[in-house]
């Protein structure tokens, strides 16, 4: 029987390998720690997780301030692609990076499925 950590890791790897143009994914706790990751080699996971936590905090504040309700996603678009954050349960966030040619609808759909599974594990 795989451990919880192994199950989380498998879900992330599945998200990366099965979704076209998704280049990496990580599961980050709301206190800024990496729970599991399938990020490109050479990525500084600590910095990425801290930034994810900061983006989430800022997204929550902004959504609240502008009365847009509970935060669901944060989406950053750069010239090289996308970074998307999605809540995965109350204590963690799923973060995905995708290339600029990514079909966002597909990425978001797969992320939503993965986030629901991950949310049950953490």
């Amino acid at each position, binding site marked *: 029987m795989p451990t919880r950590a192994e199950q989380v890791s498998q879900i992330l790897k599945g998200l990366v390998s099965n979704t076209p143009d998704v280049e990496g994914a990580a599961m980050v706790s*709301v*206190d*800024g720690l990496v729970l599991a990751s399938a990020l490109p080699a050479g990525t500084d996971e*600590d*910095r990425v997780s801290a930034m994810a*936590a*900061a983006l989430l*905090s800022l997204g929550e504040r902004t959504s609240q301030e502008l009365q847009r309700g509970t935060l669901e996603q944060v989406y950053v678009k750069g010239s090289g692609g996308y970074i998307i954050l999605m809540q995965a349960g109350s204590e963690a966030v799923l973060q995905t990076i995708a290339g600029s040619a990514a079909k966002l609808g597909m990425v978001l759909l797969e992320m939503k499925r993965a986030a629901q599974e991950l949310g049950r594990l953490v």
Partner: protein
Amino acid sequence: MTGRGFGVCPHDVARGLERWAFLNTFVNKALGLGSRFGIYLDFVEFAAALEGEEFLWGFLNPADYLKARTLFGYEAIARPAGIRDVAYVVARTGEPLAGSIEAFAGRRVALVRGYLAALVRHRLQGAGVSCEVVAVKSYAEVMKTVGRGDADFGVTYNDHFDRLSAAVRDDFRVEARVDPGLAHVVAAHPSIPQPGRAALRELLLGAHLDSAGAGLLATLGFTAFEEVPEGPYRDLADVLEAVR
């Protein structure tokens, strides 16, 4: 029961919130505090969170540290080495120099309610000098008020003034400085057990000794952390009481 927040002075959040997210992650990774960095963009909501005991630990300005200590028993852990909170008294460039503290008598002084203004008011009070206070809501407003001529002097924060663009700074001069040896403080709620608070202190005071800590310090813009001396904060508590 305290919350799990890591609270950071809104002024410092506005200067770059990702630094504080890094610090929170660094500490959580080393010590497992489980704190969550929350963003507070103004002092009113920050004060409400502090008074609501939402912070497990925080990076607090000297007055908020004293408040947290008095209300809830927060313990000072460390402070940035070599970085001081200094009150600047500024005037428009080209105006005659005040020359002495007595020259402030009857003049209009723009200030933001807080510990820096209290330090200046205490000095003036001590010299028997009375000024007309022009109360404003931010250090930016202090500069604008003095710049427009609606105040003769303004009390501002060295960190704010020193970061203004050269073009803006050149319109003002620093007439006087009040530097009682204060700095923002990393402080911890007593619900963190004493060994945890000691570990946090050791972690921060030793940050400059290894590459991971050095990376954190570079992100924060600090050279190191240092111990928090009691004297300047005890003096500030006396000043705040005297000008209340």
